[in-house]
């Protein structure tokens, strides 16, 4: 691990990762419990966005900016999946 970031930034990144994992668990509860299919789809979308936030924070923590590309690709795939599910629900395949 690289120690270029200061103590304050490291502490806030740790607190933020804790909050993000807690919100991942909350969204996962909704994903398992959701009464209809659209609830599960928006929970899945939010899961992908939270994973994207975790990847961005990790790239700040280890000080490698290549990992931001992973976040962009993750957003792209989540958007395509959401649109495909919505089209499927509306009209069938």
């Amino acid at each position: 691990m690289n120690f270029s970031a200061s103590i304050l930034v490291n502490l806030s990144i740790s607190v933020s990762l804790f909050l993000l994992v807690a919100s991942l668990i909350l969204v996962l509860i909704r994903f398992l419990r959701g009464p209809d299919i659209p609830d599960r789809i928006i929970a899945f979308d939010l899961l992908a966005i939270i994973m994207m936030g975790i990847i961005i924070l990790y790239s700040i923590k280890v000080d490698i900016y290549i990992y931001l590309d992973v976040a962009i690709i993750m957003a792209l795939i989540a958007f395509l999946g959401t649109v495909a599910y919505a089209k499927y629900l509306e009209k069938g395949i």
Partner: protein
Amino acid sequence: MKEIILSFFILGGSFFIFIAALGILRLPDLYTRMHASAKASSLGVGLFAIAAGIHFSQFWVLVESLLIIIFIFLTAPISTHMIARAGYLLNINLWEKNVSDELENRYDLENSILHSSSNPRKRD
């Protein structure tokens, strides 16, 4: 000074994403859940991207974080609108304390066309 701004953006973004997760768990209805999740989570990821751009402070990383922000702000309303439309066409129940349904009797559910008046005229 840079560290203070950076940790402010990081803590703010994670706070907003946590609010989005609380909203998607606690709110009573598909549409209110969607209202909570789309706006707050896109704001949170936007703050994270600004924090990454400040931290690395190179030109291409700034362009990339701007790309993340533009992409999120373009795609989140589109996907939310498509799921809301699919949910309304599937007759997902509204909340029982709901006050008004603006789209009532305006959607042609068979052809999925939205009319502007509540008594659509037949086109011959």
